[in-house]
């Protein structure tokens, strides 16, 4: 327990960042909440419409639901690639004797490339006419029947725009998980090996429980990043063809800045805030229950 005087000083030092946070995060959220009850195109008079925007969003807007489910699928693909990929690579790295630094750096590289460059790069990779890298590879390995215009095919486009986002941050999460893995006490692992634990048991009973706090943090980070994913799909396909790669975020952005329907766009953004809170709550709940059992 801190003495009284220093608690005051801690509060004094905490206040400026808190105020900054309120101004930059809470205030816009509250403003969106406020705007979501209005119909407003930016230059007209604001018209109070009550819950009409929410009713329209939940009951009458097919694009909204389409983009909501797209966003969930996008999230799932990103999570599998980012967290699954990161865990696999990090685990393999710990058993590597040489060249760890080099491999770590190589995996981290995509995280420092600018988003726009990544988007352009992948548009080329997926291209069919002229033939891009992916279709060329498929051709070489004899899977020519799988060649397609990945970004124009309504069945593949969502996965195609999710993969670059997943690929991009795998290295970053790998680094965090790797740091946690090498902090697992060697004595514990050795004791388990002496007791005849297999590699799998070692991982599930010793290593993973040990890195669980870090795992929770990375899961929350990856989920919130995934839920607000915007730039790569927007740049690569602009939500198309049709609404096949439209996410809630890109739809919200278009509603606000192309359709100038600021009231309805605010309604969607309020939904995104709630969705993020629910997702984080769910993750904490599930992981806590697992830890308790």
């Amino acid at each position, binding site marked *: 327990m801190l003495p009284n005087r220093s608690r005051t000083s801690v509060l004094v030092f905490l206040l400026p960042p808190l105020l900054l946070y309120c101004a930059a995060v809470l205030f816009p959220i509250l403003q969106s909440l406020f705007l979501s009850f209005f119909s407003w195109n930016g230059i007209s008079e604001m018209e109070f419409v009550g819950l009409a925007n929410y009713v329209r969003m939940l009951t009458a807007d097919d694009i909204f639901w389409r983009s909501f489910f797209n966003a969930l699928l996008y999230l799932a693909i990103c999570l599998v690639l980012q967290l699954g990929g990161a865990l696999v690579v990090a685990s393999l790295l710990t058993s590597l004797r040489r060249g760890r630094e080099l491999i770590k750096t190589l995996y981290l590289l995509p995280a420092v490339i600018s988003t726009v460059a990544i988007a352009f790069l992948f548009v080329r990779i997926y291209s069919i*006419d002229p033939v891009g890298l992916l279709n060329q590879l498929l051709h070489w390995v004899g899977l020519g029947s799988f060649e397609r215009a990945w970004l124009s095919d309504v069945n593949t486009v969502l996965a195609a725009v999710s993969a670059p986002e997943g690929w991009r941050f795998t290295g970053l999460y790998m680094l965090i998980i790797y740091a946690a893995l090498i902090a697992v006490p060697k004595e514990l692992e050795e004791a388990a090996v002496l007791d005849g634990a297999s590699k799998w048991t070692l991982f599930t009973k010793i290593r993973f429980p040990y890195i669980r706090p870090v795992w929770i943090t990375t899961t929350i980070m990856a989920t919130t990043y995934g839920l607000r994913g915007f730039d790569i799909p927007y740049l690569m396909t602009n939500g198309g063809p*049709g609404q096949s790669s439209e996410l809630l975020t890109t739809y919200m952005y278009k509603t606000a800045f192309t359709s100038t329907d600021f009231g309805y766009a605010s309604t969607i953004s309020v939904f995104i805030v709630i969705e993020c809170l629910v997702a984080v709550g769910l993750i904490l709940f599930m992981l806590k229950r697992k830890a308790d059992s």
Partner: protein
Amino acid sequence: MKKLFRAAAVAAAAALALTACGGGGTASDPSNVSPTGEIKPREISWLLSRPADGAVINIMKKLADDYAKEHPGFALNLITTPDRPSYIQKLETLAAANKLPELFDTDATPFAQELAKQGKMVDAHKLLKSLDVYDDYRPGALDYQRFDDGSLYMIPFQFELEFIWYNKALMEKAGVSVPKSLDDIPAMCTALRNAGITPIAIDGQDQWPLERYVAYQPFREAGPDFVQKLKKGEASFSDAAGQKTVKWMADLGKAKCFQEGFSAQGYSDAQNQFTSGQAAMYNIGTWELPSLATDKLNPEVRDDIDFFTLPTTEGSVTAANEFVSPSGIGMAVNSKTYDPLVSDFLKFALEKYPAEYAATGALSPTTNVQTAIPANATPLYKKALETANTLGDKQAMPWDTQLDPTTNGRLQQELVLLVQGNITPEQFTKTMDGAIKQNAPKFFK
């Protein structure tokens, strides 16, 4: 801590109330085009959406420098965002914040009409008349800028004609000739595909090029009024002209007229396909003359390239010399900041602009100057410019400047699906008629 939150909430609510009140702002009389008073030089800004080193910007920079010599302290700050969707977002956000600069670019969109209705733009008809240059303009160039009610609030700086460019050698190879009717195109595409040639190169990424095609059949079948009625919900895609275009677009898709994966290909991808001799046709305007009708064009295809104008159809209500002839995005004058200086500068610039612009080899929006043909031009250059002299009275308006933005966005998305065969013409019709019904009333009250 609870107290702190309560205080923060109150502060947030108060700030909200303040911003909500701050939206207004007084606009001066938009019809007062000759303000009196002293000319006080200052810096003025033009928010525009034109290529950064293009002719319009270069000429206006030069004219502003000339003007500044006589009026020390004057400067023209050109802020350009060539990417149109980003530009529109910027413009709309600034308009919402009531922070539009002295001059800004806009098409004759429903949004712009609302700005005009609110008195935020100077009446360009009166302005051009008062500067005594109104009669110099091509009627078509001004008509392109007009709103549906005939009012004029934007000044054109370009005049372009849109053609379908084609590769004679590829057409011959497939045994097809220039289409006599729009309805011939799907069959042409099939023949070209059978000969292993991409029929039409199109920039699918930017969406407006595909949207041009949907405008063609109704323009021939029902004239320029169709889209004006359609956007207000007075006509629909279920009508005869609407159904004809929906079916035609689906047929283009079925005949594989556009390159595979076109929806993810950009402007330069499409142009490269055509200029490298892979695609037989390419629909683009005279702004590309410097790359399609000069020695910059790939020598291998240079002698094979020609163009035709929009084909007619049987029973067409518009003539062969009537097609898409846009005068580009127009410049609007902010009425709030319009003063003797802005007026005097515009008088200076608009008088000198046409001659300078025509000297660059482009078509001026006025008829009082002769376009200079560049030394490296191919014979096509002259042929293209001469087409401007025989234009008819009606013009096909690009639909993206006509429809309300939400319907327009939906149309662009659904068109790709229709052409790719992901939805049926019936689904397309139902979705689009529904979208117009829902969105049009808000914009066209």
